[in-house]
């Protein structure tokens, strides 16, 4: 074990959640990582709440609506859009901590830091076309219900195509993470997660027809471009949140391979594990 852990740390108190959190704040070496992880979990939940239940822009409406129907759509969601995207705007910066945490996983790997920096910058700028522009377009659309319907139609397209059609950032970003995981010798993530990044990257290719079709399975609300893609994305997100949690528990702040968890003992012969500990 490293010398750094010799410092005396008081016992974690039993009892209320507040006291436990306070203990972690003061004494847990991994508090930065846990702040990052909890930010990810809370943000994704908020995201689901805000987009699916409050703004109700997801699942997306059809691109084939006529301008008068689009005006009606904005009208139906007037307060949902305005309040929903106000909150998205307030919490949207949490993505900075989220992406920083994921970039850190790459820093912990045995690969070059270029991977961490690439991922960080790619995903940081992805929030603009990929999330915030939709907020602006929907707010501008909702705030003047008497706007020219043709312009409302343009704002509608602007919102949904930016949101779903911003592909390259997530494509390249996922590939960066994939390569990092596959080359990594520190066992930060299992190799199959590297491959799962490829699946996520491919969803960005699959969504491309949304820029062409206004109806059918390839439109931005279609069975293939949205529903199946969303299933892959949700799986991917759930998986990396789980793996990240495991990684944080295993973290030893060294630069070599991350130690395995006790429950994964079966993967290694006892001798090698004993020597590492």
């Amino acid at each position: 074990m490293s010398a750094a852990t010799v410092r005396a740390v008081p016992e974690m108190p039993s009892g209320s959640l507040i006291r436990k959190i306070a203990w972690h704040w003061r004494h847990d070496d991994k508090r930065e990582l846990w702040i990052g992880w909890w930010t990810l979990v809370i943000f994704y939940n908020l995201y689901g709440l805000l987009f699916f239940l409050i703004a109700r822009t997801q699942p997306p409406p059809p691109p084939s609506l006529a301008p008068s129907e689009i005006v009606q759509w904005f009208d139906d969601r007037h307060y949902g859009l305005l309040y929903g995207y106000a909150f998205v705007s307030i919490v949207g910066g949490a993505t900075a901590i989220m992406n920083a945490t994921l970039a850190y996983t790459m820093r912990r790997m045995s690969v070059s830091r270029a991977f961490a920096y690439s991922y960080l910058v790619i995903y940081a700028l992805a929030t603009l076309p990929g999330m915030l522009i939709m907020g602006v377009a929907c707010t501008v659309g909702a705030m003047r219900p008497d706007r020219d319907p043709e312009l409302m139609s343009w704002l509608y397209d602007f919102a949904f195509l930016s949101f779903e059609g911003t592909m390259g950032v997530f494509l390249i970003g996922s590939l960066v993470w994939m390569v990092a995981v596959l080359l990594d010798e520190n066992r930060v993530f299992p190799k199959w997660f590297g491959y799962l990044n490829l699946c996520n990257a491919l969803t960005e290719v699959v969504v491309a027809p949304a820029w062409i079709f206004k109806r059918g399975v390839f439109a931005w609300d279609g069975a293939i471009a949205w529903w199946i893609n969303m299933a892959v994305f949700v799986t991917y997100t759930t998986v990396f949140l789980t793996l990240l949690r495991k990684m944080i528990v295993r973290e030893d702040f060294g630069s070599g391979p991350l130690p395995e968890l006790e429950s994964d003992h079966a993967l290694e012969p006892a001798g090698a594990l004993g020597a590492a500990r």
Partner: protein
Amino acid sequence: MTTVASAEPRAGGPDERAGAQERARGVRFVPGQPDMWVFVLFEALVFTSYFTVYVIRRTQSPDLFLQSQAHLDLRVGVFNTLVLLVSSWAVARCVQAAREGSFSAALNNAYLTMLFGFVFLVSKVLEWATEIEQGFGFTTDEFFSFYYFLTAIHFLHLLIGFVVLGVAVYEIRSPARRSQELVETCATYWHTIDFFWVLIFALLYVMR
């Protein structure tokens, strides 16, 4: 010293350690990395969902699909399928040769796999070009949207397959590497791509 070093697999690589441990215990769950099988299963799920959507849409407009399908050239489809099947055979021989330690044979088979894969790519592009010239593009009708989508996604997986084969070649070429597990992993990916093509061929070309 040097002879020992060349006989041993690359020290320190985690795959190699895991592979060595597995072999030491005499337990082999699957050929190649189990991780690749996770990927294969996941992709199979995703492709199955695409196929399901295709079949459902087809039953909703059977005449349109039947008519459009007639414009595909079945002979080219069969040719492409055979080419990929032969390439799978080549990669299987590559794995076999690597296992036996005949690495130059393994290398040749890997190159052969690439060659057949390349033949498929060229044939596919020519087929697309012909169809586009005849006026059947991505947006022509729903059948052709599916046709181009499925074949293009497969094409993309095949391109990735070349990268994967490249990794296998890289492993086989150097005595310091030559991880049998990694070669098998690459072969698994290639077989899967072949398998998906057979399904796509059946759905798009054959099923009426």
